[in-house]
């Protein structure tokens, strides 16, 4: 056999393309290995009797095997929505291409990981509370001013009334 571990696909090929190519290559090489001469040599006794039949049986065998394998691959792709996922992943990888450091990965401890997920909500809540507090404080400042003014006014009225009372004694 040959050595080729990685098929020569252009760097720009997406995952879906690589997937197809790799499966096709696999099939190709399998069929090449299970060649007709090989088949005929294994079934030599029958081949000598019925060479044409041997050929036709082989052709059917290979064709059936290939279509079964292709069908299975298609089923796997459909079930897992692989085409869509491959394209998404290609995009995500492309977007991260300028980034060198390893990215975050789940720590395996749910409590740790869920913290970061909650933080945005807590931050939103915090800015909301700060706003409400500011508004209440402002409002209370205004009302407090009115209350102080009221107290002054009441003291004033009381003084006036005292003065009148005295004048009438």
């Amino acid at each position, binding site marked *: 056999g040959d050595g080729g*571990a*990685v098929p020569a696909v252009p760097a720009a090929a997406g*995952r879906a393309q*690589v997937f197809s190519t*790799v*499966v096709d*290559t*696999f099939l190709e*090489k*399998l069929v090449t*290995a*299970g060649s007709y001469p*090989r*088949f005929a040599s*294994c*079934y030599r*006794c*029958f081949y000598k*009797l019925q060479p044409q039949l041997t050929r036709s*049986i082989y052709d059917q*065998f290979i064709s*059936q*095997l290939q279509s079964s*394998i292709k069908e*299975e*691959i298609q089923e*796997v792709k459909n079930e*897992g929505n692989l085409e869509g*996922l491959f394209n998404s*992943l290609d995009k*995500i*990888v492309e977007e*991260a291409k300028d*980034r*060198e450091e*390893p*990215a*975050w990965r*789940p720590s395996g401890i749910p409590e740790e990981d869920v*913290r*970061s*997920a*909650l*933080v945005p909500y*807590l*931050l939103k809540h915090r800015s909301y*509370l700060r706003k*409400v*507090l500011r508004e*209440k404080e402002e409002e*209370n400042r205004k*009302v407090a001013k*009115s*209350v102080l003014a*009221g107290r002054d006014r009441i003291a004033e009225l009381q003084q006036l*009334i005292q003065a*009148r009372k005295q*004048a*009438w*004694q």
Partner: protein
Amino acid sequence: MSVDPMAYEAQFFGFTPQTCMLRVYIAFQDYLFEMMLVVEGVILKKLDAIPGCQISPSQIRKCTEKFLLFMKDHFDKLFGRMEEVLLQLVLNIPRNVLLPEDKVHEQYPYSKEEFQALQQELQQLQQQCRAETAAGEALRAELEEQKVVMGELEKILQWFNGLENICREHGTGNFKESFAFLTQNSKKLQDVLKDVVEKSKKMEQHEQLL
């Protein structure tokens, strides 16, 4: 070398890549065996139709086994290579790639302490809000009370103003003085009345004794 569980890939694809490959391997292998059995079956049937045939079924079985062994060998090698490529290039997420759904973890890498501090800050803010609300209610309550009190006081002041206006209108110059005089007189009258009542009581007592 430890086996990479490919958990992050599983998170994205919804299956573990290795599991997927295994399933495909088993399926392909099954087809291969199936096809070989079919081939053998067809050959045996054809042999049956040939009169005076010398070839025994066990011979055919040996042929099948030979071919199958050969196929299986190549199949395993080729599948192994295919699996390697797929796991490396297709069914994998590079180290530097972060899935969009995990963006929060990079944006907000809060440690346990930072997280708790944030929670405490929220509690504090909530308490402060409650305090301000209570203060606001107290202030507004006092404001209401003040309204009532001011109303009463203003009424009294108005009453006084009213009195003075009456005096001015009726030209009674020192109405205040005469009012004061009246109040004193009425006091004197009350004292006199008290005397009279006492004296008449004493008189009654004397009459009874008599």
